[in-house]
């Protein structure tokens, strides 16, 4: 009677791992440059398409495809930082303007991908990577994609943690996250660290999208359809906590798959309502505990910083609240 359960748990783990990889990048953006980047999900689309293009040339060569996805997305991340966000940040605009700008960037990237895909004829494409079963347990196949995603999530979390704790660059990044001005005064080359941050954040999004693209069909709307899920993850995490992101990723993954199938199996709720569960999580957490579920000092301090930034002094160009 519970024969759907092992497969569903495995799928949840897979989706959760993808969310973890992608959201780590968004958490990094939020922590270091305090930007709720609504264009982050577009890296997922780009990663997926890089996977499609590169896997046509090098089929099944995961290392090459992953590296390509990372590099292309990093380049695009750097470009949008320097073209769109940096001019705005230099003018010290409010966070609302930055959100609008990130929507504009997202729309531009999305429809650029749409145009390109429509010309090339890849509006819905698949990657040329063979999916095979590694182990079969309880009638559930553990395929190489699932294993890849789960291993990748663990690997990326550990690497990012080591990078932030051990290297000089990572330490400067944390310094900028906790106090931008103090970090600059103490001699950290802020713009270089922010560049590295964009490379890592966008690259993580690209790799996540590449792995996700093996599992599903790649469409230009792939990123947008997961945008709110990724934001659900970082909101559960309290915006800037990396541990929280890992927990939040799996919470969202499980709520989307296992909880949804449970509801479908016992209460007959249509599977089409699947995206509503992360939405409900977003609203409940924003209302009840906007600092997120993860108890983290960095998260709290950033929230306070947000509050200070929003209340300190008049800024030009503050749009009305609606």
């Amino acid at each position, binding site marked *: 009677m519970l024969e759907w359960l092992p497969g569903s748990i495995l799928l949840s783990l897979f989706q959760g791992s993808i969310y973890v990889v992608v959201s780590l990048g968004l958490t990094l953006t939020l922590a270091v440059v305090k930007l*709720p980047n609504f264009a982050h999900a577009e890296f997922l689309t780009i990663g997926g398409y890089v996977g499609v293009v590169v896997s046509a040339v090098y089929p099944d060569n995961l290392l090459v495809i992953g590296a390509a996805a990372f590099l292309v997305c990093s380049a695009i991340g750097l470009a949008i930082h320097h073209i*769109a966000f940096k*001019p*705005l940040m230099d*003018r010290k*605009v*409010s*966070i*609302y*303007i*930055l*959100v*609008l*700008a990130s*929507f*504009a*960037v997202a*729309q*531009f990237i*999305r*429809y*650029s991908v*749409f*145009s390109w895909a*429509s*010309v090339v004829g890849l509006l819905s494409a698949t990657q040329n990577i063979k999916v095979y079963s590694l182990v079969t347990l309880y009638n559930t196949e553990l395929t190489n994609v699932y294993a890849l995603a789960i291993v990748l999530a663990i690997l990326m979390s550990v690497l990012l943690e080591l990078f932030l704790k051990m290297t000089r660059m990572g330490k400067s990044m944390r310094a900028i996250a906790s106090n931008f001005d103090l970090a600059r005064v103490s001699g950290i080359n802020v713009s270089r660290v922010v560049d590295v941050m964009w490379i890592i954040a966008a690259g993580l999004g690209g790799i996540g999208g590449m792995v996700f693209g093996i599992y599903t069909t790649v469409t230009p709307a792939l990123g*947008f359809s997961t945008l*709110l899920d990724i*934001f659900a993850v970082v*909101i559960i995490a309290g915006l800037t906590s990396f541990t929280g992101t890992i927990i939040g990723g799996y919470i969202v993954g499980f709520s989307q798959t296992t909880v949804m199938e449970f509801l479908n199996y016992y209460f007959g709720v*249509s599977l*089409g*309502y699947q*995206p*509503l569960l992360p*939405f409900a999580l*977003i*609203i409940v957490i*924003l*209302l009840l505990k*906007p600092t997120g579920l993860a108890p983290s000092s960095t998260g709290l301090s950033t*929230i306070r910083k*947000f*509050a200070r930034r*929003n209340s300190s002094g*008049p800024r*030009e*160009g*503050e*749009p*009305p*609240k*609606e």
Partner: protein
Amino acid sequence: MFFGLGGVVGATVAADLLPLFSGAAVGNICDISSRLSRESIALAYPAISVSVWVIALAFAMLAGGIMGLVASYPALRVKEEWFLSMILLVGGETFRIVVTNTPEIGCGFNGLDGITTPFYWLSNYLPSGPLQAEVPTGLYAAVIVLLAIGCFVFAQKICNSPYGRLLKSVRDDKVAAEALAKDVSRVRKQIMVIGSIMAGLAGALYVYYIGVATPEDYIPALTFGIWVMMILGGYANNRGLLLGAFVITMLDRGSLVSGIALESYFPTLNSNLIVYGRYMVEAVILLLLLVFRRKGLLPETRVKTKAYTLFDFGKKNAKPSSQPAEVPPKGDATTG
């Protein structure tokens, strides 16, 4: 979101009421046959089709208002500014998913069609030819323009009143407004309800104009276009919004027309590119505006209440500048 809601509610009400009023059997409103019967009823009974239109508009406005009230509960309680846009984005997507997956509301994914303009019956009295189809649509477009002017005048009246000053103060300095014993959350709730009623009305008008209501029409790119209109003309400025709406609609229609023209010259051109290109141009316009001209094309004007025109501040001042020296706009707003 409210726009879409108005559209779907208006269409559903219209589809339910048309057969009911004319005494025909109410079947499944999603069928093809019901679509045909809707069209024939609209053609045969002028009084019914106009009254159903009015009722549908009223229901759409009511639904918009109620949803605005419901959405204002979470939206006005969040801590950060950008959480608000997050909540509204979530609300819009929730609406789209619920409508797509619930056949009981607006026929689900396929949408509801056969919604003719309220003046469709006029084509009975017109000679056949190109005019037969154009006159009812043109008349309806004129009605929409009238309603839009009405909404604009209403918005201007709100803004240039003591209440408009209150709104400005709530926006500019919440704490100061609270210190002056203004109920900030109540004001914000009121304005959200007013805004969503207008959006509901617009949605119903739009559905009557294009004749179908599908949830897939209400993509985030639509909301995005409205943002660009707002920022382009200058937010907090009704005249600016008119300018912005004009420019973006011109871009929209212009891209359609130029797309057709381009296709005749380059038959190999992919017609999707025009639509995508339009969205990309909108995004670029918004980015450029945000970086270089955050106040929009038209600047925000001062609040012109009755008292203001009575004392005639602006005209007595010899300087023709738009900002007279004695009352800076900010102090003007907060001292109410």
